[in-house]
């Protein structure tokens, strides 16, 4: 029972921060609400026996990535955007479609008896960094290497995109 209360409490915060992020006008506030949301999800990860992923979530996502976001928002002065839009039906239709997506998904999940199963046993050492590290270098060595290449591509891509082509002087 206590478990359930904690879940609903955290879920409420997660949904509230997500909604706030979408609704608030100021981009800086949006980013901060997203950070909150990411932290709440990290707490869920801890509850679900995934301390390593929770740490990565906090460090990489809530930490580095969102700082980058905030930095760019500040740099561009893009807290608010002006200008009218010609898309009159966009927001109501998008809202309706989003509601339909959520409603449909919930309906399907409720029809899934397998999903109602109690938590399986995840032996404690499985979620810890050592086990994950071992897996990363055996079964998941290929995705691991691919990810490193992806990071490299992103890095070079950023350099290419950010370099001011007008002042290259080639």
């Amino acid at each position, binding site marked *: 029972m206590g478990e359930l209360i904690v879940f609903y409490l955290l879920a409420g915060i997660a949904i509230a921060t997500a909604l706030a992020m979408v609704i608030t006008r100021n981009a800086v506030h949006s980013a901060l609400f997203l950070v909150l949301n990411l932290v709440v999800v990290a707490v869920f990860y801890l509850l679900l026996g995934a301390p*390593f992923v929770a740490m990565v979530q906090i460090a990489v996502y809530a930490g580095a990535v969102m700082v980058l976001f905030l930095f760019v928002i500040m740099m561009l002065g893009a807290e608010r*955007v002006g200008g009218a839009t010609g898309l009159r039906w966009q927001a109501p239709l998008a809202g309706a*479609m989003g509601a339909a997506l959520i409603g449909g998904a919930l309906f399907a999940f409720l029809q899934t008896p397998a999903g109602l199963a109690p938590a399986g046993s995840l032996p404690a050492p499985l979620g810890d960094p050592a086990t994950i590290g071992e897996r990363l270098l055996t079964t998941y060595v290929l995705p691991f290497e691919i990810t490193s290449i992806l990071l490299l591509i992103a890095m070079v891509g950023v350099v290419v995109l950010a370099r001011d082509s007008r002042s290259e002087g080639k």
Partner: protein
Amino acid sequence: MVTLTHYLALSAILFGIGAVGFLVRRNALIVFMCVELMLNAAGLAFVAASRYRGLLEGQLTVFFVLTVAAAEVAVGLALMVAIFRTKKTTNVDELSSLRG
């Protein structure tokens, strides 16, 4: 008792909110943040499933999704900065010269 269905429902709600946000916000940066929210929702579903199935694979997959998302953020923000230099805006509705 908290079941997998609870977690999946929560992740679907977060995913839906993110998708709607993508479609209603005009600031490219927020639009992109909404994508992060959606990926985050998917991550929650993975970890929960991992827990309820007693498998580690879900957690590992989230690790990869997180890393790739970080890389994607880098590319995306660089792109937005580049456009801002040319067009002085991050309003996606003003970037609609290509059409038809």
